[in-house]
């Protein structure tokens, strides 16, 4: 195979070559034209290189059966195709120019009263004696006033052991989805996109979505809600607070789900090949060293961990 150098070809030479190609596409060259074309092509190695590129172009065009090409490329009227593309482009561009507004959330997280970095877990005792724990990558504002104790979950996950307040001010966790009022309890809230997952271990809670009727949760129950609706009430997931002790517990958990969980505690990307995402995994894993967890995975499952860069890890079948 001939190797064509990657260096660009001068544009005037490309123009000459294009002219020859245009003539060839128009029909057979006559004897005189053929002679002149051969002359041109051998006059300079650059001419030949330009021509090779145009031959590659011709190969590309003939790489598709013509009836297929016509069926596909003519499938939409051209004008419509281009217009839709432009519209889509404009939509996305509009987003690009207004990103200052979008960055509001990260800014709020950055200025939060309390925040935890990736892989970090924090515990604080609040003024009323409540014990607050933040999981990896979480942020809260703590807004205690004379009339209420409000904790705003800006991102991530918290576990709250509510203390007894002599002034009996209500204790409220505020999320994008709504309010959760504690009635003497220990519970966990995980905010993900517009959804709050709540698991209750002691006491009772009232969940108040922003745009739906409130509901109550009893000890041992869990459910998610958004601003407008609730998921089904299910048994509280005890594993969900294992992070509090720095552990990740898996009980026949599909590998894909496990990897998604583990990814919360690592910087960078952690991906799992879909073909092995269903492998069941059981074990208790320490969160302090996720690299060790990955090594352990290789020992217990038929998988291979690839560390492409410090920020890029994928897991594939062994």
């Amino acid at each position, binding site marked *: 195979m001939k190797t064509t150098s990657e260096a*660009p*070809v001068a544009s005037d030479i*490309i*123009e000459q070559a*294009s*002219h020859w*190609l*245009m003539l060839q*596409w*128009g*029909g057979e060259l006559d004897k005189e034209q053929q002679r002149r074309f051969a002359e041109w092509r051998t006059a300079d190695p650059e001419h030949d290189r330009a021509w090779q*590129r*145009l031959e*590659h*172009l011709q190969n*590309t*065009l003939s*790489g*598709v059966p*013509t*009836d*297929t*090409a*016509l*069926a*596909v*490329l*003519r*499938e*939409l009227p*051209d*004008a419509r*195709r*281009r217009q839709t*593309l432009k519209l*889509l*482009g404009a*939509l*996305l*561009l509009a*987003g*690009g120019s207004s*990103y200052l507004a*979008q*960055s509001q*959330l*990260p800014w709020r997280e950055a200025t939060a009263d309390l925040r935890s970095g990736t892989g970090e877990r924090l515990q604080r005792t609040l003024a009323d004696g409540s014990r607050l724990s933040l999981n990896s990558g979480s942020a809260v504002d703590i807004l205690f006033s004379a009339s209420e104790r409000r904790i705003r979950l800006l991102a991530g996950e918290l576990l709250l052991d509510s203390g007894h307040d002599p002034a009996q001010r209500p204790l409220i966790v505020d999320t994008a989805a709504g309010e959760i009022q504690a009635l003497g309890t220990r519970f966990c809230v995980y905010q993900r*996109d517009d959804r709050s997952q709540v698991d209750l271990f002691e006491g009772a809670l009232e969940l108040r979505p922003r745009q739906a009727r409130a509901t109550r949760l009893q000890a041992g129950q869990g459910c998610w809600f958004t601003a407008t609706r609730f998921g089904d009430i299910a048994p509280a997931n005890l594993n969900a607070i294992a992070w509090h002790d720095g552990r990740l517990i898996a009980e026949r958990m599909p590998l894909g789900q496990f990897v998604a969980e583990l990814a919360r505690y690592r*910087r*960078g*990307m952690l*991906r799992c090949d879909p073909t092995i995402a269903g492998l069941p995994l059981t074990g208790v894993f320490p969160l302090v060293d996720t690299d060790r967890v990955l090594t352990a995975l290789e020992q217990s499952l038929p998988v291979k961990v690839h560390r492409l*860069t*410090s*920020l*890029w890890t994928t897991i594939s079948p062994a």
Partner: protein
Amino acid sequence: MPTDAPLQPLDSLYRDHHGWLQGWLRLRLGDRERAADIAQDTFLRLLVTRRLPAQSDGRRFLAQIARNLVIDQWRRQRIKQAYLESLAALPEPETPSLETRAIVIETLMQIDAMLDSMPAKVREAFLLSQFEGLSYSQIAERLEVSVSSVQKYMLRAITACYQVLYAE
């Protein structure tokens, strides 16, 4: 690995903006998984091309790449769908292998990009010549222009194709 040093800016770019990019895409696509995939592909593209933005321009730069990826994906989806529909019309034994299909879809993407960069008349002349096998004088008749105009159109078409294949 010796490749670690030049990747340092990518690391900080990732730290500073990956979360933002994912949120930005999610807002626009309304699909968390797709947003995560495209955010990943955006950084993959940077990793492969080694092109990095100026310090102050990170988000705009990432958004531009992500936007191109979304449009590409959207085009690929349309082309794939149209292609599979055209295959459905074929009798069973003529159905091409999966590998052939992948190559054809890739090629169709390239040709589509070429067509997209041509003005309407140029595109029409190009399609008639290359895919319907018409001669320049037939095309001239069809488009009601002179043969020398058709030649000009074809030259422009070749230039447009060349740009798609070899543009820097």
